[in-house]
């Protein structure tokens, strides 16, 4: 195994044994092969630097590269945006460790040699983020390589396999050229993703949000610190912001919009599809710290005389967010709120049982102008998981979920 810092600064000789220059950079070409060192930049002082291709390399050892071609077979160097520079883009920079779910700083890059008749390909296997890399960087050139290697064996290693390394590149064009997809980020839990984003700089955060699909971006934004969410949404174009906000629950979208300047939030609302915008607008009417400001307008309500199997097949046919479905609200003949059935009871009920037989007692509901404290008290007193919000005619207009209550209580701690 070789380390990138052992090669950088090393000497390069051509097939005739002549000194060509010093290794000043290693480039990957992710569009071609994700982990192969595709080019080696050879600096020659005042002369134009040369570039050796991966199949020009015949032998590699710490501090030395021997080429299998003559110097004149090499090309002059021209900057290329689709090359990933190991020294400039990776070493000492922050990356996201998608397996450990955190932001770390790269101390060194480990390379494996792959020999095929006469050429040596270098492949990036892992990045070193621990003490071994730090000690090597510190002692290189000061202590003998043997001593450094012996010291390293005694130190704990902290490495991240190359597949789990996610580069942070704020420039969207370069991200495309370097094939940085952020697919791994999309697979993480939104809360972990939000934690990672909080550790980054504003430009980097913006870059990550821009590269995620709208649904993931919406989930991550909903978990993010409110001020950061506001900052990110403010910098987006209104149509991009609308695309992301319509993936959110209406109450979350309304919370985000309520923090924006009124003109800005109108612009975003205009870009959102009619019915979603209507829901969000309705929610924006309510003060933030009231039941109305906490509620979600997406909830399931059925007639109290409906049978269990009818209700289940009706829910199945609808596009309901099953993760957050924990209660079904009942309405009577006059469309007034009449009670709540928990999903647990629904699950175990006989198919022909009527909803009204399953409902929890007492039927608790709250008016949209009730303040936060009253809502908390109701949740606490009746051990609720969701609470129905009703208007002055006692018609259900929304529901408050327990996770929103926890978020708000946590914020007040």
């Amino acid at each position, binding site marked *: 195994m070789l380390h990138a810092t052992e090669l950088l600064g090393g000497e390069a000789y051509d097939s005739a044994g002549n000194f060509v220059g010093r290794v000043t950079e290693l480039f990957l070409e992710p569009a071609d092969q994700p982990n192969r060192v595709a080019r080696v930049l050879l600096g020659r002082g005042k002369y134009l630097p040369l570039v050796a291709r991966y199949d020009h390399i015949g032998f590699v050892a710490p501090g030395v590269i021997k080429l299998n071609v003559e110097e004149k077979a090499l090309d002059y160097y021209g900057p290329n945006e689709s090359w990933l520079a190991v020294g400039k883009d990776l*070493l*000492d*920079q*922050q990356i996201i460790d998608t397996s450990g779910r*955190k932001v*770390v*700083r*790269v*101390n060194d890059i480990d390379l494996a040699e792959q020999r095929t008749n006469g050429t040596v390909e270098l492949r990036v296997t892992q990045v070193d*983020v621990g003490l071994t890399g*730090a000690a090597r*960087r*510190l002692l290189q050139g000061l202590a003998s390589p043997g001593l450094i290697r012996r010291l390293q064996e005694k130190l704990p290693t902290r490495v991240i396999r190359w597949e789990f390394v996610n580069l942070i590149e704020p420039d969207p064009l370069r991200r495309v050229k370097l094939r940085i997809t952020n697919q791994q980020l999309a697979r993480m839990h939104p809360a972990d993703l939000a934690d990672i984003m909080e550790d*980054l*700089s*504003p*430009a*980097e955060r913006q870059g990550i949000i821009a590269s995620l699909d709208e649904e993931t971006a919406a989930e991550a934004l909903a978990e993010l*610190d409110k*001020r*950061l969410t506001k*900052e990110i949404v403010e910098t987006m174009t209104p149509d991009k912001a609308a695309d992301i906000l319509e993936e959110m629950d209406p109450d979350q979208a309304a919370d985000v919009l309520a923090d924006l300047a009124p003109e800005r939030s109108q612009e975003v609302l205009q870009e959102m599809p009619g019915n979603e915008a209507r829901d969000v607008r309705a929610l924006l009417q309510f003060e933030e710290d009231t039941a109305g400001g906490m509620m979600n307008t997406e909830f399931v309500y059925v007639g109290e005389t409906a049978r269990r199997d009818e209700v289940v097949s009706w829910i199945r046919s609808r596009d309901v967010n099953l993760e957050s479905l924990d209660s079904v609200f009942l309405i009577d003949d006059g469309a007034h709120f009449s009670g709540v059935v928990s999903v647990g009871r629904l699950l175990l009920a006989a198919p022909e049982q009527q909803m009204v037989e399953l409902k929890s007692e007492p039927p608790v509901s709250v008016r949209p102008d009730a303040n936060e404290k009253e809502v908390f008290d109701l949740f606490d007193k009746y051990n609720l998981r969701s609470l129905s919000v009703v208007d002055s005619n006692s018609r259900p207009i929304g529901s408050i979920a327990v996770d929103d209550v926890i978020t708000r209580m946590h914020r007040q701690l």
Partner: protein
Amino acid sequence: MNWVSISERTGAWRARAGEWGKRTRTMRRRLLLFLAVVGPGVITSNVDNDAGGISVYSQAGAQFGYMLLWSIIPMTIALYVTEEMCARMGVITGKGLSDLIREEFGFRPTFFLILIGFVVDMGNVAAEFAGVAASGQIFHISKYVSVPIAAIVVWVLVMRGTYRQVEKIFLVACVFYASYVFSAFLAKPNWLVAAKYTAIPSVHLNAGYLLMLTALVGTTIAPWQFFYMQASFVEKRVAKKQYPQARADVLIGSISCMIVVFFIIVCTGATLYVHGHRNIVDAGEAAQALVPLAGRWAALLFAFGLLNASLFAASILPLSTAHVICEGMGFEAGIDHKFKDAPIFYSLYTAMIVVGGAVILIPHAPLEKILILSQVGNGIWLPIVLIFMLLLVNRRDLMGEFVNTRTFNLIAWVTAVAMIALTLILVYTAIFPTPMPGI
């Protein structure tokens, strides 16, 4: 009086209040925008007036009266110019100073920079606890009581607090610097004379005077404060468009810091200097000497100010140092993390407080040597940090349109060169305490 007239009157009053509210709305809005950002600048500049600083300021007043007051205005400019660059880098890049140095200059320069930083700050922390001990003695509290209590208070504050809570406490600590203002008034100085000496430079070319001037500048601009300020703007997540408020924060910070310096010099200048009590070793001795001259209250206020400053700096210095080391080396840092998530950060923080406090409690500890060495360290550290800062802040790929303007660069480089020259003199005299040849 009937109800109608009352309601008419309250109606008119309400209308007027509404009118007034409308008129002040933009003002209040601006104030709110500012208050959302205020903190890092004010705190960093004020914490600069730490135990070591207060000692030097009292000495300056005791030895030379008002003669050094003029240096306050150029020092304010130097402080503002250098701090503003850090604030700008923090707000624009969203990264700390050691982060940036690591990313742009590589591992080894960063490592040595923070190694020096660690050693120097360790000495500074010890100096702060020495300040706690000295001020405790004025209130007749043994240092074996005051120092451990101070260490525990400081440690608990950061271990248990979130950034916002800790910042509020620090802002309150800034207000307590006002004790020096009261203390100065109790010393009954001649304000007109003081004002004259502030506006008109009176330069004397003798070794003692120049050394004191150098010491003044050296203690006012300390390298660790740049790291701390930039990191706190980052941790506070001040956004690009809040940059004008951040700049105002830095400006207010530098001015308020130097106002405190002014009052300390005036206080000791009006008393100790006038009564010939001109050779004092530290701020504690200055406070004691104030008792017969300006009264018990002036002395107590002076000592209270010292205690506040020492405690304040003793909490911020280890915090800043741990931050710098973890940032540069890539460990988790910041007081919003739990111990489990940032073990190295909290271990460093704890170790610095424990060692810094313990050194003071060793009987016959060579305190003066520690103070001198930490000053020398500051002097060596400062030029390197300033040059890194100037190189970074002029990088267009990092700062975009927010790089230094040409005028600002000129002021900044002049400041940097002057600072470097002065601190090198300070280092020289600290190592070779005989007066320099030639002056």
